[in-house]
């Protein structure tokens, strides 16, 4: 059997008055893989979509009560739903209407007459693309939380040995407060590159780098190289980060700013703290355990104002 594309069963909603189309969609997938709910009227479907957003929405332009474009627009104009991929089903004549895809924020369209194999692959491609786009960190484009958690849980389930490292930046907030968000984003981009390239500099290993959000990152490497990876990340970060400060602060090796109480305070240059949890001999059972241990370690790493790493020695 082919490996399935999706970690869990996918739910799709098809809005169409066309029974043939409904039959086609339902015949193309094993319901364990992708199950379709068919609704013949557009207006009535809106509430269903809002209450239980599916993984994909397919809207037939033959709907009588509401134009398919309006359905797409309603869904896409709400930030909580706009990640939901929408495919329109069109008749050849519809193409002549002129489509402004900046206004109609659909993700793809299908054209009558439908060819089963093409419909199947288009829908699956759209689902995969949506999950990629949804999860990537908008700034660094690194995989986000959903991918991070599923990767970790997957490794735990397979009882693979690995080291999971949580990284975050010390004094990032004071930098952001003084220099502003866009200078802060520069540092986040730099940190992402440092971590990614350091991990990739170990040839021939399985690894993963994700961006939890803000100044929090994770990387996963084989246990044997974890400490060396930490050393290299710390060294590269400490070497590069002073260049993201203005000359006077770099010279002084700290920043001076006035807090809300009007008091002048100094903050050290940013540093990176790394907490590493090992999964050896299948000791972890759940993702939550890994993150709980890491949070404890991170406090220890943070006690050091300079860049540092702490390894979870309990594992050995």
């Amino acid at each position, binding site marked *: 059997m082919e490996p399935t594309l999706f970690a869990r069963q996918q739910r799709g909603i098809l809005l169409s008055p066309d029974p043939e189309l409904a039959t086609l969609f339902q015949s193309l997938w094993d319901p364990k893989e992708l199950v379709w709910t068919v609704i013949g009227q557009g207006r009535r479907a809106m509430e269903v979509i809002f209450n239980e957003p599916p993984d994909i929405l397919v809207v037939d332009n033959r709907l009588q009560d509401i134009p398919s474009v309006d359905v797409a627009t309603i869904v896409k104009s709400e930030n909580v739903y706009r990640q939901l991929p929408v495919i329109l089903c069109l008749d050849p004549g519809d193409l002549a209407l002129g489509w402004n895809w900046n206004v109609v924020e659909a993700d793809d369209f299908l054209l009558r007459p439908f060819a089963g194999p093409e419909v199947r692959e288009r829908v699956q491609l759209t689902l995969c693309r949506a999950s990629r786009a949804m999860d990537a960190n908008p700034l660094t484009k690194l995989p986000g939380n959903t991918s991070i958690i599923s990767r970790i849980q997957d490794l735990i389930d397979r009882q693979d040995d690995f080291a999971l490292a949580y990284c975050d930046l010390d004094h990032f907030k004071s930098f952001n407060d003084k220099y502003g968000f866009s200078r802060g984003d*520069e540092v986040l981009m*730099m940190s992402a*590159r440092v971590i990614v390239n350091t991990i990739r*500099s170990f*040839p021939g290993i399985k690894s993963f780098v994700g961006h939890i959000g803000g100044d929090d990152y994770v990387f996963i490497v084989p246990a044997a190289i974890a400490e060396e990876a930490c050393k290299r990340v710390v060294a*590269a970060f400490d070497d590069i980060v002073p*260049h*993201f400060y203005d000359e006077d602060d770099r010279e002084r090796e700290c920043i001076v700013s006035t807090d809300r109480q009007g008091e002048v305070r100094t903050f050290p240059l940013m540093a990176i703290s790394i907490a590493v949890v090992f999964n050896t001999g299948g000791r972890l059972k759940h993702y939550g355990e890994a993150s709980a241990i890491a949070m404890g370690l991170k406090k220890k790493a943070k006690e050091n104002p300079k860049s540092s790493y702490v390894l979870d020695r309990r594992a050995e």
Partner: protein
Amino acid sequence: MEEDLKTSAKGQILSIRDLPTLPKVLDEVSRLVQNPNTSIEAIAKVISRDQVLSAKVLKMVNSPVYGFPGRISSVQHSLVLLGFNVIRGVIISTSVFDIMSKTMEGLWEHSVGCALATGLVARQAKLKDPEEFSVCGLLHDLGKVVAAVQLPELHKAVGEAVRTQDLRWFEAEKAVLGFGHDRINAWLAQHWHLPATIKEAMSSHHNPERAQFYPLHAAAAHVGDFVVRVFEYGNGGDDQAAPLSEQALKILGLKLTDLDVVLDGFAENLSEVSGVNFSPEDMTPDKGKAN
């Protein structure tokens, strides 16, 4: 009329797509990047000896795509941030000069020598980050390379004027083009989002006293340029000694005796950079003076 030439020349300069280098360093780096076990440090060491490859990686890492334009002034840092894949891409897409390499060799040696000398000047002046100053020295004549590629006819005319009218290259550029490579440097540095320190050194190394924001960098590159010319190592296009700006020494807080230390240091360390032979089969005694 002159303004027209400047505008069209600027357009030509900035439209540069392919900046070729000399084979020697490129071959060495190509060999290094084929091995995934090569360290970034090893690659950085070699790239730091080639003004074109250094300019390419600095241009790339400072491009807005990476999200921190104008921040990175070291080759080593650039390579850490770009990563092995991107470096390999830059290297395999770099071509070499096919015809000009003979006349370019002198300029390459001059630039590598200037990198060494500028770094020594910075150390003598006890400046932070001497590596950054080396980069300033390395790139101080990049505009000459770009002009040779993008404005070959005019470049030839400048060389002609140097020979027939006994001018310095910089003076001949002004006579023929109406502007010098310092101006070209400024256009390039601006267009490529290079850090302000490097930009200032590139654009003001002939007039460090006019540097607005980073006089130290401009002055260090100026003195470095002077030192490498004293040694007649390499060739910046002419074989005349450049006048040394007293103001530059003043900016750096250096005395003439400090300059002696730099000259000694340069003599001592020259073998390290001159180990980068641009034409190993062509080791004639006067090899430094290619033009």
